[in-house]
């Protein structure tokens, strides 16, 4: 049963990575940039939810929605102010800007909310579900996290596969010039992508802090990097890849913590990433369509 417990915690942590990784991978797919500030949007989302619930005594669901609304606006603003002026700039300039935005958000949070840790209270309570006559217990947070991840994954797959906007996003991610010739407004499509990614980041922030309640201005940075790893692991630009990469990363991390060493768990995670990239440089589900001429 301990194995099953570890597996469930791994899937739960992996679900959070997957939700964050979706934001990374969608933005990369369409804007061809690594938005290293994405992890810090998670932190902002968690703070908004924290204040909504703890200070203003709003219901948790309202807190989550408020966090999503604020992060969506934040994502659009960051894109407009920091990244859009660099659309034609070399990718290195954009990357450095993203790191700058990341520090800006972290320091802004320190200034606004102090570096003192806040104790985040889980939005779904601390109850546990007992299975197999109490041999296996699963927290509501774990269940909510896994279910949220599945719902988000299905919704995004339907959105990109079946809606006009979703298809336009795929068209832009493949060829912005051609998309523009179709009458697609590439700039607003990029904004929508940032909005979706940041809204998801807010959910991830709330789930993350529900499971690990210590909230500080740097809360988002390590999960952000892990989720970026997950996105590369699964094949950056691919939505199912982010899902698979996130889940695997979470499970590997928890197993490494449980069976190898707590201190070495991150090293194990990154070692697995290196091996995967050596064998399959485009990631697990990274596409390499050969063009016929």
């Amino acid at each position, binding site marked *: 049963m301990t194995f099953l417990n570890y597996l469930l915690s791994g899937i739960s942590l992996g679900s959070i990575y997957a939700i964050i990784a979706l934001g990374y991978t969608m933005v990369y797919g369409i804007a061809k940039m690594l938005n290293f500030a994405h992890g810090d949007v998670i932190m902002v989302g968690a703070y908004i939810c924290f204040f909504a619930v703890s200070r203003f005594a709003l219901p948790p669901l309202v807190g989550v929605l408020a966090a999503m609304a604020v992060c969506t606006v934040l994502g659009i603003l960051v894109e407009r102010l920091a990244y859009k002026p660099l659309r034609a700039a070399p990718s290195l300039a954009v990357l450095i800007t993203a790191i700058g935005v990341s520090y800006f958000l972290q320091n802004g949070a320190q200034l606004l909310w102090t570096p003192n840790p806040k104790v985040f209270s889980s939005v779904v309570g601390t109850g546990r579900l007992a299975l197999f006559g109490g041999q296996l217990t699963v927290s509501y947070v774990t269940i909510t996290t896994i279910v949220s991840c599945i719902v988000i994954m299905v919704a995004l797959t339907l959105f990109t596969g079946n809606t*006009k906007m979703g*298809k*336009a996003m*795929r*068209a832009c991610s*493949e*060829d912005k*010039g*051609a*998309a*523009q*010739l*179709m*009458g*697609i*407004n*590439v700039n607003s499509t990029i904004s929508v992508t940032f909005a979706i990614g940041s809204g998801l980041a807010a959910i991830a922030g709330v789930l993350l802090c529900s499971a690990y309640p210590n909230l500080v201005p740097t809360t988002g940075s390590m999960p952000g990097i892990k989720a970026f790893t997950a996105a590369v692991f699964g094949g950056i630009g691919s939505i199912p890849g982010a899902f698979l990469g996130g889940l695997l990363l979470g499970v590997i991390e928890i197993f490494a913590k449980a069976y190898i060493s707590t201190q070495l768990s991150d090293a194990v995670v990154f070692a697995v990433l290196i091996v995967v990239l050596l064998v399959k440089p485009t990631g697990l589900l990274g*596409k390499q*369509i*050969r*063009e*016929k*001429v």
Partner: protein
Amino acid sequence: MMLTVENIHVYYGAIHAIKGISFDVNEGEVVALIGANGAGKSTTLQTVSGIMHPRSGKITFLGEDITHTDGYKLPAKGLAQVPEGRRIFLQMTVMENLEMGAYVQKGKVPEADFENVFSHFPRLKERRSQIAGTLSGGEQQMLAMGRALMSHPKLLMLDEPSMGLAPILVEEIFNIIQEFHASGTTILLVEQNAEMALQIADRAYVLESGSIALSGTGAELAQSDEIKKAYLGG
């Protein structure tokens, strides 16, 4: 007058690529821009499409000044382009590519629009659910043309539609351009294959290093000694 281009100057940074080109396209015409590689044909077309903007000069489409209009707003006004190198969405299916072509249409795309494309390109119908990247070069060109038709363009601009295709396919592509024309679409054609272009063009302009060197009817230019020597192999 459907399209009027007046004395446009276009730059790539410091490079003066288009040095004062003027031409026009009347409704119902096939107009060709021909010239050697690097003469500025594609740049001219991209400037009309709003992908690039001229530093000076004026472009008018159906009476409206579109000189500085963002490119994505033009398909809704009736301007469509089949870009050089096809630029279809390789990871999307044939149907999805056609749907993208109809992006500016509100609501659901009518089945008749797809059928119209398939009537010109029966092969695309057979491959409708195939991923576009798996099509042959000729089929990809057909898809790029079909995709452009989906927006019901008043003016269809084709950039090097014959590039990289076998001679038999080039014939087929040009026949289809004439079909489009016969069904009422005005055509602006950019081609290096001057011989084919002049055969179907009502009028043509010859571009040389960013300026118009010659213009006339297709038949006149096909007979011109200069053209014969420079582009038609004697």
